[in-house]
């Protein structure tokens, strides 16, 4: 059904961006410029949030409650023959969930950023970019066809570039921005190829069945479910040009956007941007776009088992890889960046084994606690006057209590302590991996135990490094003035250089975060309310936000029924699995009516996923695994305390600190040869040598030819006369020739 309010969700941030860009720049030096930009930016996001929640819960019955998606056809963009791509939005359950948490977390981060970026000269520009990013992200999430989603996909890539490179004067920011954009681009190739292949196979690229201008538009997924059958579970299927190829291509795009192996190195470098950017883009929203794509296309993936297997394997491998690096990082933001990569690996692992709903659940809870952790680190950095190295922190809980408590909530959430949000989602993932045989479309799932082991190991490592981070930052003794090994003594600069700075006499831009040595009497202070209030809100969400998705196994402990609201909401999105689904129990039929029937009924209508959860042996297994993972989380925390409580600065293996030398590997084997080829081969050889040679050669040739002709111009009149006579004789001769023939 149609609801034109949907367009307001995406156009409000766009308007905010335009207003900020045009008027904010004009107001740049007025005293109220920051308030103007901040109000405009946060206000438009607030409008988006309110509208998103309204449409999700109330309009036309609430997008999250009704069966049909709420559509909004804005205008027909491309319509050529069979191909149709509209600028149209659609909120169904999946995009409803995404829109709600993206706007809400985005709003909190915007408020935080008004405090964090206070005093920065490019304030208006920052918020213009940030609003533009929200516009792109919401377009991505709310699009109703692949092409518009790709527009949003590209848009977030662009805004990521703009925002990472926000401190334009810093070299590492600029090169990090370029790196992010280029790696995203490599992934974009995959998405585009995937979309092309989808159109070739199905003849449509729309997500939903709808009627536009009296014309019936079919959804890709209903087409796939009704007309196509599953690909075989072989390696050859990847190249066969069928659904598996589509799946692999789309996943390549997802690796680029969500920083999985092999396109993951841009995310840690992206920490060169301001911390709110890291929180919003690289923790909560943009990087989850890859997961969104995979889950949105789950109908395709369920017929492409090879692709799903690959996703699961890569997700698990990335998770472990990033976790091993994270325990050796000293920059607080880098720890969180690798943690993000690792958690994204979890999400893909979930998607790969067929637990799409759980993947989205983890996306949501991860958004809460990772944004919380990033914002908390931003608060820490702000309080520490832009010192990011954890080796120079310590005992901050005395000075920044609100930050300490909220980050503690985030810490427990990510470690997977029960009740906190991360516990439910992560535990579900682990369970589903362990029992992947039962959920995977083409069972059995090879190697599920290995993946489960890897995932569990990663969970332990997560606990270890997060504990390490908390210890180094908030407990222990203060190390503000300790010289780091290898750092020479830095002269103290003035104290008031950063937080409220205007133009420096030294001409340094105050747009960047310097690392100045801290003056001798330095005491970190708590951040202003604009920064702490979002932290508190996110901490509450991290603590209690997971309760919407309590799996049955848990809720049944306390006698509750199936209260997994989250799963019920997202069930229709996950298409029917194939006939291999385990039979439902009759108890299912008597369930409450708040569950919506699946759109396509192939097998007897039910969701096998929900079915599984309710049989007794399955429940017991799940409870057992949940207990195991809790225990392992506690073990991980314990290990962390053991290793780092006394010696926070304990050295981790150097190979980990050097990120397994992956960047150097890429540079050496990929970037440098291409650079050399471009510079010496293509530029000097081809462009300068060949093409310029041709062009210059033509010029030279013309000059030589004209020199030849110029020799006729001797300048002497008599020579001219002779030539004229010659010409006349030629003409005469012509006539004589014909006269000769005449006369004989």
């Amino acid at each position, binding site marked *: 059904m149609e609801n034109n309010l949907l367009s307001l969700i995406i156009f409000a941030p766009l308007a905010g961006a335009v207003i900020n860009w045009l008027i904010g720049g004009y107001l740049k030096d007025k005293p109220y410029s920051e308030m103007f930009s901040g109000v405009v930016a946060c206000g438009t996001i607030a409008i988006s949030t309110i509208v998103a929640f309204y449409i999700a819960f109330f309009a036309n019955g609430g997008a999250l409650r009704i069966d049909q998606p709420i559509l909004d056809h804005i205008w027909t963009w491309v319509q050529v023959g069979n191909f149709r791509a509209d600028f149209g939005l659609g909120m169904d359950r999946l995009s409803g969930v995404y829109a709600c948490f993206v706007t809400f977390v985005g709003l909190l981060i915007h408020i935080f950023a008004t405090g964090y970026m206070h005093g920065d000269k490019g304030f208006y520009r920052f918020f213009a970019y940030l609003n533009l990013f929200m516009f792109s992200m919401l377009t991505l999430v709310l699009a109703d066809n692949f092409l518009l989603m790709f527009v949003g996909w590209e848009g977030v890539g662009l805004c990521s570039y703009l925002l990472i490179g926000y401190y334009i004067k810093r070299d590492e920011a600029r090169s990090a921005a370029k790196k992010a954009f280029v790696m995203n681009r490599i992934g974009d190739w995959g998405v585009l190829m995937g979309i092309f292949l989808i159109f070739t196979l199905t003849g449509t690229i729309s997500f939903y069945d709808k009627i536009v201008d009296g014309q019936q538009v079919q959804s890709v997924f209903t087409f796939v479910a009704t007309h196509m059958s599953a690909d075989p579970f072989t390696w050859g299927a990847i190249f066969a040009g069928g659904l598996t190829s589509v799946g692999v291509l789309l996943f390549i795009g997802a690796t680029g956007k969500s920083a999985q192996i092999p396109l993951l190195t841009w995310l840690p470098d992206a920490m060169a941007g301001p911390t709110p950017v890291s929180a919003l883009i690289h923790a909560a929203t943009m990087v989850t776009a890859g997961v969104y794509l995979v889950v949105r296309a789950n109908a395709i993936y369920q017929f492409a088992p090879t692709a799903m297997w690959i996703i699961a394997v890569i997700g698990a491998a990335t998770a472990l890889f990033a976790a091993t690096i994270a325990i050796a990082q000293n920059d607080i933001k880098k720890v969180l960046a690798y943690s993000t990569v690792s958690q994204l690996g979890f999400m893909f692992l979930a998607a790969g084994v067929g637990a799409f709903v759980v993947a989205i659940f983890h996306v949501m809870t991860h958004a809460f606690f990772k944004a919380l952790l990033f914002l908390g680190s931003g608060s820490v950095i702000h309080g520490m006057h832009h010192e990011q190295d954890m080796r120079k922190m310590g005992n901050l809980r005395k000075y920044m209590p609100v930050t300490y408590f909220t980050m503690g909530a985030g810490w427990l959430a990510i470690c997977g302590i029960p009740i906190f949000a991360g516990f439910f989602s992560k535990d579900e993932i682990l369970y589903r991996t362990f029992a992947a045989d039962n959920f995977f479309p083409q069972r059995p799932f090879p190697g599920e135990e290995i993946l489960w082991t890897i995932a569990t190991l990663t969970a332990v490592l997560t606990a270890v490094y997060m504990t390490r981070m908390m210890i180094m930052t908030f407990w222990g003794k203060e190390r503000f003035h300790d010289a780091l090994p290898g750092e020479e003594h830095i002269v103290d600069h003035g104290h008031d250089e950063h937080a409220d700075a205007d133009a420096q006499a030294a001409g340094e831009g105050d747009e960047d975060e310097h690392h100045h040595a801290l003056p001798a009497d330095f005491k970190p202070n708590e951040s202003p309310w604009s920064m702490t209030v979002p932290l508190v809100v996110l901490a509450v969400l991290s603590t209690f936000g997971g309760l919407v998705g309590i799996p049955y196994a848990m809720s049944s402990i306390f006698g509750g029924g199936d209260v997994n609201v989250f799963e019920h909401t997202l069930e229709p999105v996950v298409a029917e699995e194939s006939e291999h689904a385990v039979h439902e129990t009759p108890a299912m039929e008597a369930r409450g009516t708040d569950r919506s029937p699946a759109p396509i009924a192939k097998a007897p209508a039910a969701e096998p996923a929900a079915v599984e959860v309710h049989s007794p042996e399955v429940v017991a297994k799940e409870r057992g695994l949940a207990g195991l993972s809790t225990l392992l989380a506690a073990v991980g925390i314990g290990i962390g305390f053991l290793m780092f409580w006394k010696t926070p600065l304990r050295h981790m293996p150097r190979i980990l600190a050097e990120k397994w030398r992956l960047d150097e590997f890429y540079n050496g084997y990929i970037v440098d040869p291409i650079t050399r080829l471009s510079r010496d081969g293509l530029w000097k050889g081809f462009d300068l040598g060949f093409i310029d040679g041709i062009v210059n050669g033509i010029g030279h040739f013309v000059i030589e030819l004209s020199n030849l002709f110029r*020799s006729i111009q001797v*300048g*002497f009149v008599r020579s001219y006369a002779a030539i004229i*006579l010659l010409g006349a004789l030629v003409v005469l001769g012509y006539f004589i020739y014909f006269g000769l023939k005449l006369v004989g």
Partner: protein
Amino acid sequence: MEPSLASYLGLSGILFTIGAVGVIFKRNAIGMFMCIELMLNAVNLTFVAFSRYYGDVNGQLFVFMVMSVAAAEAAVGLGIIIAFFRNSKSVDVDDASLMRN
């Protein structure tokens, strides 16, 4: 033998040849000019001969035009030569090679 049209044309051709060769040979500007007048006269002869042998008055009319043009040309050409002489003090056309290359 009655001189036929061919003889007059032959005479005209010979005069024209002499004039043409003279233009190339002579270095004096005035000399060149006079050779050009000779060529014009040769052509006049051709016209008059044709006019006589075909009974057409147009030939002689055209001769009239040619003559008036030759007069005008004489005036202007000599003016140019005088102006040129003022600058270079010589009427050698080989000295007027400013347009070389």
